[in-house]
């Protein structure tokens, strides 16, 4: 009797399917093109293929975990449900007025992100709750039904309900939700208190509207996927990855699909944390570089850092504040327009720029020979000898080196530099773009990059990791096996998870900590219910309490960890422990002694996690062997030496304990790891390749 887990990650281009056999610790992978008309088709075809090819018994699957970019794409492409908004009388424009700030200062033709609900589908309801939670005007059900009727007559399939101050008193939203659900059973409703009960009407409303916009899609899709997988004979319960890097059950995901927006990247970050846990002591900069973008996320003590807001569907993909604010817990990551397909060009100053425009996969880099004429990062990587033209992407793409060289030469002529200088220049400039973004991001968290190891994944990650690490002054690079398809495995190592928030406006010097305890108790009860409904043991739940704290008068919240509670007993000492927790968080982030000003917790947050029982996932390399032998050499360029004949190793042929010096090229079917001169390479017990960089200047 075997014990299998199934993980499925639907991305924009590919759907990754992984089956892990817990009895033999082996994984089977399959990468298929995403079927956009019905995404579940690729999943079912791919999974059926793996079952057939490896003669797996569908009855022996104990776990089925899923991540998808489907809902994110619906927001980006504006292909969600026709959505309406019901809001407090006098305020229907908050969704379109937004924060009133520009994301780009010098563009006079700037366009605000188009609201998901146009003005004619935003209707007002007579009701009002004040800033202290009191009812000033009771909910007028006549106006509620009149407004809802008009929305539905105008074609609304899904409706968001956002009333002012509902984070404090949800009575009116609850009443409206109940009345409308009863009256219109075929329409989907989302009230803001269910999704993001936080102060700030625009951010809460934007999150609620986004949820309403994708909810009908989620209801249909998740139902159909679960049914089809059951049709294959797999009777494992479907679990969904949420953006904070945990798992939840189908009903919860259908209720708040907005929580799944970042499920794919969350799986990637969890995979990164998992791969690096043993070899780097848990402090990692996870670096994933693919065809069009690079993603960077920080892992502290084995845990990916969490953010409490992000932006979906940016108007300008890499521009902060150009998207729709979404207030959910999510793995914190930055996305940079830097990938293998990024196009090199010169700007008005004649300087060499790389990206963010990308040749994508159509036509792709010039060297793909599909008609692309612009020089890309991949073309430079071929010219530098980093990539193998005879066996690129496992031999699935035929490479036209001459076309790549021609593209680079035209840039060389333009800048008066040699082909070699341009090729290295493209590699160096794209690395600097990523390193600079990493420096700013890491500084924002008050961390020092030199304390982290770089964990590289994605097709282009291992090619660029070495000189990115050098720029950041990192000492170590970790490259997992099958770095090109690593992220789907993250699905199988995730715990069950629930994230909750409440606005409290709690002033530490004069409010009673017992009130805070009461809020946390409610959140904990709610979270435990979700854990139980996910099929996990509620008794195994671990709670983590946090608060968005600030000095009174400050406009900026700092999220800090709080002691576990209960906050009962001696008030003075409980207060002191809360103050200490905030001060410690403040010092850690700012490296500054906090001033002596009263503290306020605007929101409190709870994250609850519970382990998923069943087989573990273990990392192990090839045993035996010893003494790695290169399969050959090829000339490769390193700024320290120029072109040198460089040893090439076959990744699947390496064994635990192998050691050799750089420069070296280590080839895998999905990616190539480049190691510079003076570095040391070692294969760890985990099967990870560990590169130790030489000391010295970090250019």
């Amino acid at each position: 009797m075997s014990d299998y887990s199934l993980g499925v990650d639907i991305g924009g281009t590919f759907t990754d399917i992984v089956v892990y056999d817990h009895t033999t610790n082996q994984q089977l992978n399959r990468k298929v093109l995403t079927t956009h008309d019905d995404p579940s088709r690729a999943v079912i075809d791919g999974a059926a293929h793996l079952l057939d090819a490896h003669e797996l018994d569908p009855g022996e699957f104990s776990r089925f975990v899923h991540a998808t970019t489907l809902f994110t794409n619906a927001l980006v492409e504006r292909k969600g449900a026709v959505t309406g908004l019901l809001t407090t009388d006098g305020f229907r424009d908050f969704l379109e007025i937004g924060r009133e700030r520009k994301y780009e200062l010098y563009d006079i033709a700037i366009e605000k992100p188009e609201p998901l609900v146009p003005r004619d589908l935003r209707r007002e309801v007579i009701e009002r709750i004040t800033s202290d939670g009191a009812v000033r005007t009771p909910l007028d059900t006549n106006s509620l039904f009149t407004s809802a009727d008009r929305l539905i007559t105008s074609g609304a399939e899904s409706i968001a309900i956002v009333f002012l101050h509902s984070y404090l008193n949800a009575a009116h939203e609850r009443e409206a939700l109940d009345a409308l659900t009863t009256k219109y059973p075929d329409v989907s409703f989302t009230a803001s208190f269910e999704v993001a009960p936080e102060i700030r009407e625009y951010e809460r409303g934007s999150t609620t509207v986004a949820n309403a916009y994708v909810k009908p899609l989620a209801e249909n899709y998740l139902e159909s996927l679960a049914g089809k997988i059951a049709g294959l004979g797999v009777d494992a319960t479907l679990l969904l990855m949420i953006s904070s890097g945990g798992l939840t059950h189908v009903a919860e995901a259908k209720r708040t699909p907005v929580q799944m927006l970042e499920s794919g990247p969350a799986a990637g970050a969890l995979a990164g944390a998992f791969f690096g846990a043993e070899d780097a002591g848990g402090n990692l900069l996870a670096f994933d570089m693919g065809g069009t973008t690079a993603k960077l996320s920080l892992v502290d003590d084995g845990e990916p850092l969490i953010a409490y807001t992000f932006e979906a569907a940016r108007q300008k993909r890499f521009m902060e504040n150009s998207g729709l604010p979404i207030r959910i817990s999510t793995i914190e990551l930055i996305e940079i327009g830097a990938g293998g397909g990024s196009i090199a060009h010169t700007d008005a100053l004649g300087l060499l720029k790389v990206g963010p425009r990308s040749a994508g996969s159509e036509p792709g880099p010039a060297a793909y020979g599909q008609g692309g004429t612009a020089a890309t990062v991949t073309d430079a990587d071929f010219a530098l000898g980093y990539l193998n033209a005879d066996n690129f992407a496992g031999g699935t793409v035929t490479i036209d080196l001459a076309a790549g060289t021609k593209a680079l030469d035209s840039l060389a002529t333009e800048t008066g530099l040699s082909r070699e200088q341009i090729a290295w220049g493209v590699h160096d400039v794209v690395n600097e773009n990523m390193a600079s973004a990493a420096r700013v991001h890491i500084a924002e968290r008050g961390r020092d990059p030199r304390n982290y190891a770089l964990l590289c994944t994605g097709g282009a990650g291992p090619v660029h990791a070495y000189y990115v690490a050098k720029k950041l002054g990192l000492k170590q690079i970790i490259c997992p096996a099958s770095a090109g398809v690593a992220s789907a495995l993250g699905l199988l190592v995730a715990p069950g998870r629930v994230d909750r928030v409440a606005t409290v406006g709690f002033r530490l010097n004069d409010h009673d900590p017992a009130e805070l305890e009461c809020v946390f108790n409610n959140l904990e009860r709610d979270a435990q219910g979700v854990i139980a409904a996910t099929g996990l043991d509620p008794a195994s739940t671990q709670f983590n309490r946090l608060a968005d704290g600030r000095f009174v008068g400050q406009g900026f919240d700092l999220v800090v960890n709080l002691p576990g509670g209960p906050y009962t007993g001696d008030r003075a000492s409980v207060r002191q422990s809360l103050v200490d927790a905030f001060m410690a968080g403040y010092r850690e982030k700012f490296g500054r002694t906090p001033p002596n000003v009263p503290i306020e917790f605007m929101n409190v947050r709870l994250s609850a996690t519970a382990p998923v029982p069943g087989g573990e996932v273990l990392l192990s390399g090839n045993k035996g062997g010893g003494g790695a032998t290169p399969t050959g050499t090829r000339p490769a360029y390193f700024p320290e030496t120029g072109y040198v004949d460089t040893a090439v190793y076959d990744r699947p042929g390496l064994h635990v304990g192998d050691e050799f010096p750089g420069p070296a090229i280590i080839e895998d079917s999905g990616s190539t790891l480049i190691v510079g001169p003076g570095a040391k390479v070692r294969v760890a017990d985990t099967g990870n390749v560990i590169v130790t960089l030489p000391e010295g200047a970090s250019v």
Partner: protein
Amino acid sequence: MTEQKSRYDSILLEVVWTRMISIVDEAAKAIVRTSFSTLSNEANDFACVLTDNRGFSLAQNSGSIPSFIATLPATVRHFIDEIGYDNLEPGDILITNDPWKGTGHLSDVCLVCPIFRGGQIVAFAATTSHVPDIGGRLRAMESRQVFEEGVQIPLMKIISAGKTDETLVKLLTQNVRTPEQTIGDIWAQISACELMQDRLQRLMDDYALDEITALADELFDRAEAAMRKVISDVPDGTYRYTIDTDGAEETYHFAVAVTVKDSDILVDYDGTSPSQPRAINCVMAYTYAMSAYAIKCALLPELANNEGMFRPIKVVAPKDTLVNPSYPAAVVARASTGHYLPVVVFGALQQVIPNKVMAAAGSPLWVLTQTGINDDGKPYTNVLFYNGGMGATSGKDGEGCLSWPSNISSSPIEISERNSPLFCQFKRFAVGSGGNGKHRGGLGQEIEFISESERPIITLFMAERTRIAAPGFDGGEDGQHGAVKINGKNIDTNTQHVMSKGETVYLRTPGGGGYGDAKDRPTHLTKLDRKRGYV
């Protein structure tokens, strides 16, 4: 020279410049994280700059608002002139809030750190930030001289060779309402300067640089050439434009002559109204920043700021006008004059590059300040910001309610109601406020509050375009003007008002101007406007 040029090729320059921009951006993140001022963290009302050893700007943080274009490098040069290279030593931090040598009002405190290498100054790190309070009267338009506007810090050292000037700190502490926060923000800025110093030293180590002046020159020359190239595409000539604005007892007049000759631009404000005994005077540094902003938007919007790109742009104004006041004029509300300037420059340029400019926006920024005593007896001050609509361009409608030329967010209603004894009746688009045209101006908004306080609330306004609307371009109609009413009656926004419980204050920010003739407006846009109720 050739050897020097080859050292800084298109690749090294790009890589080093990218890294310098990441240094100032990193410092900016540090300021946002550590500041008390909501203006820093919600409005980016601060800037971080790295200059070479002559005070020429190499990099400015990406999000910094237009007010600071070229001002900080000029401040660095004032320090070089005032204190002298010979009197600077490692561990010095310089400070000033002189409006004429800084950014135009006392609230912006500038900090400068000389960066030494091998015993020589190789660069300067500089920051400026709007501190929470600087003393003086609260946002009072009635101030007649700068003395009423707060404490003045002349160009001096706050830290001398690592030793803090405790006398200065004590004096500042005594003269501001929120000493812990104001001094705290100054320390946050000093930390940011030190961070830039540390990162620049590491960069110079990594690339084995002894100095950065040659690299800076190469960068400036390229940026200057790029700006000259786009200017030379504009037909030579002198283009004039004038507007009148609300003013006080009488309207103010703004006149500009923009002269394009070969690859140079001269902006001349001759004919503009004289400076006033009110707080709306706009110092030359701010006048330059706003004029250069308009030109950059029109001609070279995508390029990161550095010294070279502004070399072809000259701005002049007669002394003692609204746009070039002399000490000791009152200047705190400089934005209510300065925010008109990009529009005036666009008005002139519209005659030759009609597709690269925008019709007038519903700016300057609107500010509602209330101060009083809470029901629990504590004094409070609350500042709320609101924006009008942007102007239309030849290609598209203006966006509704968007901050321009500045970049300041509006407070959420839920936060405003929580922080002040005001109840909001509505905050919504001012329907029909965008000037009609082939492309329509952006909508302003209307907001109404009721006072809920048992005690009187003192209310002050910064509200422009309440009488004279934002003009349209090329046959486009003007936007609707703004309005401020108390209990339904229009009021004089130049003086303060006292509101009692139950009284209402109504604000309507101005709409943006239209572009092109309304009869050419595409039918589908007219239909959409009606369907969505924008008109």
